[in-house]
């Protein structure tokens, strides 16, 4: 599971007010290379919740992202930032671990890189 995915997911258990962001429990992190596409990065940047993304990257063991989200204009020219953004967004994988609901503590397992977001019968 990549941080892009993590940035989109929340715990939608019945009764939970705000299930985002899910806390990451790491068991195994893998780095996988992905070809960089600057247009894609520029398009997706405004959709990212930066605080959640920054915190998650720390948990995954990557410390090079700036804490404050840069101005969108930065992405037009700062290739170094784009590379770091790309790396944290798409090249860090949580292979095994769990995503934890911030309100109930319920764990959504991540196995073989795939998060299981299905709710149990009593959470629906």
């Amino acid at each position: 599971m990549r941080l892009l995915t993590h940035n989109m997911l929340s715990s939608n258990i019945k009764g939970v007010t705000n299930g985002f962001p899910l806390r990451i429990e790491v068991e195994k992190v893998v780095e996988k290379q992905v070809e960089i596409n600057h247009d894609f990065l520029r398009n997706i940047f405004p959709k990212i919740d930066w605080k959640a993304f920054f915190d998650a990257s720390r948990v995954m063991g990557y410390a090079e992202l700036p804490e404050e989200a840069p101005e969108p204009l930065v992405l037009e020219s700062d290739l170094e930032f784009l590379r770091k953004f790309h790396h944290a967004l798409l090249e860090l994988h949580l292979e095994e671990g769990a995503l934890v609901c911030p309100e109930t503590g319920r764990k959504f397992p991540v196995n073989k890189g795939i998060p299981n977001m299905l709710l149990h019968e009593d959470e629906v």
Partner: protein
Amino acid sequence: MWYLCVFYHRLLDYRKPEVESLADLFGAFEDKQSPDFATRNRVLEWRLPKHHHPDSPFHFVNLPSEDVARNIANRSILVKGIYELWGEGSSFEELKEAVTSYPDERKLPYLESESTFKITVDSFGKVMSLHEQKERIWGLSYIPFKGRVNLKNPDHNFWLMETDDNATNNGLPPVVQRRIFFGREVGGADRKLIPTYQLKSRTYLGPTAMDAEMAFLMANQAQAAPGKLVYDPFVGTGSILVSAAHFGAMTMGADIDIRVVRDGRGPDCNVWSNFKQYGLPMPIALLRADNNLPPWRHGLKEVFDAIICDPPYGVRAGGRKSGGRKLLKGVVGPYTVPDDKRADHIPSTAPYSLLECVHDLLDLAARMLVMGGRLVFFYPVLREDDSVEDHFPEHPCFKLVATSEQILSSRYGRVLLSMVKTSSYTEELALAARIKHLEFKENHTKWLENGNLHSSVFSPADVESGDLKVSKESKPKYRGKYV
């Protein structure tokens, strides 16, 4: 400028929508822009050759430039070729007159002595012997070709195409009079994609994996391209995402069945291996999620450039959603799974009717697609007397831009719907959509028993008297969309 567009004679309903969609992708409508997505009228001008039936593979289309024409043709799956027409006629004399009077400044640049060329002779509705083909090539000697012939890789490829007034015409009503075309090829589909990606050699298949040709058509309707993010909420084995990835898009998929998406049939036989097989970039995310209760964070919207999918119609694969059948019907009260069993618990799922599934899909797409983004999906239809159900699900955020039917059996078919998002998602629109959905359910889907097609498709044929048989046999064998 008007070009001759010759299609492969199959999937008739899919031909023009594909060209229209690619024309939009390659900027054919740039100068007709209006800021409002809803009022943009992005439709090409088409004309039929004299004496031809609309199902004919030959059409004239008006495109803004040769570059656009080439891009459309080369990316398409159903365009055999787009040609700059140098002449046409009902006889070879008429053709000669037309070609000789075609302006020299359009012809001479392609007849130069330093270039290489080839002439292909083709016919529709009949077969020509090699001798007949050669005769026709020699008949073109009035054109001042100065270059050298190169049959393998010519700079310029000229085509001489004939449709004849034979009684049979590949299943179409006969062409009234012979028509001959001569043109310079601008581009054509790369049909080699189909054997390369054919399901027969796919590593990981499922019973409803999308056929390669159709998957590419879907990706073209969705305008998958580099830099775009494409999502399939019913990803299964990833067959649709493979074609989107081939065209350079980033892909993402979800499925409610964890075994299909996470495990596959083993470490070398799963969704990832399908992408590895073709050297395509892997999907950036695969997750197990229920479309009925999606896991997206509140406030997340306008993230996907396209959503392409084949929802379960309940015929060969039924949809599922969270909840448990008995629970949802109130037969059992809500139960809690004991803690020690939670980790490996597979939550029960309940049947998910086609309509509810489509409504959820429209709601998801309305929220998660960017403005101008495309939703492309199949919707099953019952065929009665060769006429097709033309009431399709709607949503106030979308404009329907294409419907293409594929006949699957004498009883049912599926229609590929392409919709463009034209308004932002709001709570009011979501509510209006829900009302529309309930209305649609009431009025247009009596034929769906239990919300699914299964019984309509698989119930034994009505036992009627010989009348039925007689009427079916006496109907003309026009193949039309069976092709």
